[in-house]
């Protein structure tokens, strides 16, 4: 596979990065913009996942000479370590306060539990802790439970204090969403599979709508909703398809749709094949919209869009 990392690849313009992927088999060749590189964690997670697959397959991993200005950023985000390549230079650990979570590989539930505990202090953004814990847990568990990825999940995150935005990327080189869902559901295309995966009630582990005792099929809906409720991007890329939830205008309402075909989003179905799944999310850390309020919005969406009849039969949970 050939991956070109441009000077800028965030979720708003992620298509430019994806369209230049060359999914050849075997060796991994990574080239970078000659002047400057600053990218979304999703991009770094994808490069790391592709590197792990290539090394596992016995192929070579080559990373081109890196522009000097970008070296500290890429080294500190863990790119060289994840690719098994020696860093071209030592980085002085200034600003170690970071506000980022470097690339991490998570293979097991125990890895995930340990990672969640360790990652929060790295961000130095306590107001973002609930959101990132929730999102990382749901996304990584999806990989561990559904992807059959032999390398687990690669995770990376960064907090942008000025814009108060938290960006998270998770990538794997497993079987992809279409293959996973096809075990129990008729799926015609990669894009249809992505839409189904975000529909609450659909899970690759059960043919029943509503899931089973272990999976509700609601994790991706919740994650998408967290981005939507804070009017931010959410990207799912699997196979040759990509879904990108758009921010929407500040004045637009924050309606959450259970049916993602109704979301304000861009969709592509003819992109270079990504063998696996990559997800990127941006979350606005807004003092006026707490995580509690995000859950309130999700609760409202469930009640308005998913519930049907028999309201009179409903019982409420008893709290004490």
């Amino acid at each position, binding site marked *: 596979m050939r991956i070109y990392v441009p000077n800028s690849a965030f979720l708003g313009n992620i298509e430019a990065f994806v369209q230049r992927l060359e999914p050849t088999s075997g060796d991994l060749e990574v080239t970078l913009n000659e002047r400057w590189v600053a990218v979304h964690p999703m991009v770094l997670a994808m490069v790391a996942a592709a590197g792990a697959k290539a090394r596992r397959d016995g192929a070579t991993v080559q990373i081109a000479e890196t522009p000097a200005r970008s070296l500290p950023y890429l080294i500190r985000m863990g790119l060289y370590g994840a690719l098994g390549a020696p860093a071209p230079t030592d980085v002085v650990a200034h600003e170690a306060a970071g506000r980022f979570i470097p690339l991490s590989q998570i293979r097991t539930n125990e890895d995930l539990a340990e990672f969640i505990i360790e990652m929060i202090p790295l961000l130095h953004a306590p107001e973002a802790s*609930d959101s990132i814990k929730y999102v990382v847990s749901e996304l990584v568990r999806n990989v561990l439970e559904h992807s059959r990825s032999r390398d687990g999940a690669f995770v990376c995150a960064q907090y942008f204090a000025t814009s108060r935005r938290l960006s998270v990327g998770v990538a794997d080189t497993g079987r992809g969403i279409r293959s996973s869902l096809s075990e129990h559901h008729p799926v015609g295309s990669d894009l249809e599979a992505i839409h189904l995966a975000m529909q609450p009630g659909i899970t690759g582990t059960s043919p029943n*709508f509503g899931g089973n005792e272990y999976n509700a099929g609601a994790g991706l809906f919740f994650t998408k909703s967290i981005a939507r409720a804070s009017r931010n991007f959410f990207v799912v890329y699997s196979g040759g398809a990509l879904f990108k939830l758009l921010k929407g205008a500040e004045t637009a309402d924050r309606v959450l749709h259970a049916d993602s075909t109704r979301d304000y989003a861009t969709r592509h179905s003819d992109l270079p094949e990504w063998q696996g799944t990559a997800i990127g999310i941006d979350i606005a850390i807004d003092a006026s919209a707490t995580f509690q309020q995000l*859950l309130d919005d999700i609760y409202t969406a469930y009640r308005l869009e998913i519930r049907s009849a028999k309201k009179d039969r409903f*019982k409420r949970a*008893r*709290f004490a």
Partner: protein
Amino acid sequence: MKTLRVVERAGSFAENKDVAREIRLNEIEPALAAGDEVVLDFKEVELATQSFIHALISAVIRASGPDILDHVVFANCSPTVRRVVEIVVEYSQDDVAPPAGLPPDEVSTGG
């Protein structure tokens, strides 16, 4: 009455579905089957995922019907935990509409 301290099994961030399932299979379901009331005490649990709460309680509601909630108490929930519990408890009782393409007999009826 059987009281289960969730933090002792799942920590302050309750997200491990395997732990939730173990609690349900080994403690919640046997206690309810014996006619006991179950108190799920979330004191010191700051946050729980929908996946955790689903694995903890959804199958009980779906198998026994909504009336089983008369025998379960969710105690000392933080506002976020409480909201997640409410979501899971509601959809676990629901007759949900399947998306296009799925026949009606594949709809989980919640009971």
